[in-house]
């Protein structure tokens, strides 16, 4: 992500993967939560996505590809 957008993301990271969430763009559709077979994601009380298990992420990229709002990125 370009640096400006980058700074506004919430970042979850391990040696294998970095998950960035651009919370202000997340509309809370829950598509990413549903498609993640590893149960890495969940909704918070404000209806925004959060990462609950970054260790389990196997970088399948499904959430990254299917989020309609450009709000989640896997690196």
């Amino acid at each position: 992500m370009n640096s400006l957008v980058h700074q506004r993301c919430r970042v979850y990271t391990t040696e294998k993967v970095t998950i960035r969430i651009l919370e202000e763009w997340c509309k809370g559709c829950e598509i990413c939560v549903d498609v993640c077979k590893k149960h890495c994601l969940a909704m918070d009380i404000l209806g925004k996505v959060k990462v609950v298990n970054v260790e389990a992420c196997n970088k399948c990229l499904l959430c990254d590809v299917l989020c309609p709002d450009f709000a989640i990125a896997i690196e």
Partner: protein
Amino acid sequence: MFDYHEYFRSEMMPHMWCKGCGNGIVLKALLRAIHRLGLSKDRIAMVSGIGCSSRLTGYVDCNTLHTTHGRPLAFATGLKLARPELTVIVITGDGDGLAIGGNHLIHTARRNIDLTCLLFNNQIYGMTGGQLAPTTPEALFSTTTPYGNIEPNFDACRLVQAAGGTFVARGTVYRAIPLEKLIAEGIQHKGFSFIEVLTTCPEIHGRRNKLGTPAEMLQALAKTTLPTGVIHQASGPEYTEAYDGIIAKAQGRT
């Protein structure tokens, strides 16, 4: 890693599509296809009509034209004739491209002009108020069919193939990586390329017809009985080249 944000007009983002709307997934696939082909933003022109999907041209940092309802193919034809060196991509919806602009669609296909047309099929007129589209399945409800739709719907791909389009494909937002590949193939094809994208309108269409959550609507697309992938590919004279031939003849150069 690929960064979508490089392709945006940042002051226009985030986009206005509803929560869970499939249009954002198509936009992603399109940007990845453009990136994959290594096309420069300055060499692309995107032309759209009116409707939810047609808002796309406001967000991308290419040369863009947001035109009148149903007419993007007519504007794109003029643009391509004047600037044949540009890669011209047309963004339209099922209401825009098949109903209001249906006549433009068949004649653009017939001419085989080198445009790539992405038709977002979400089965409804979303932005204009949830009216029946020619793609709304039978028995479903819309604001103009409160007792259920009695009209058979269109198969857009068969229509374009019959009219003379030389690249006809169908993808879904559920299978977004194959969709990206279809878009890239369509852009590379010389002649009229038509890609119907089965997408979702969870807000106006999904709610009224109780089609489930945005994720359930996406997953339902995997079960479509319509053929997907490249449906038809052929070669034939391309319109701007044929037109150049006519100019040369008129100028006495041939």
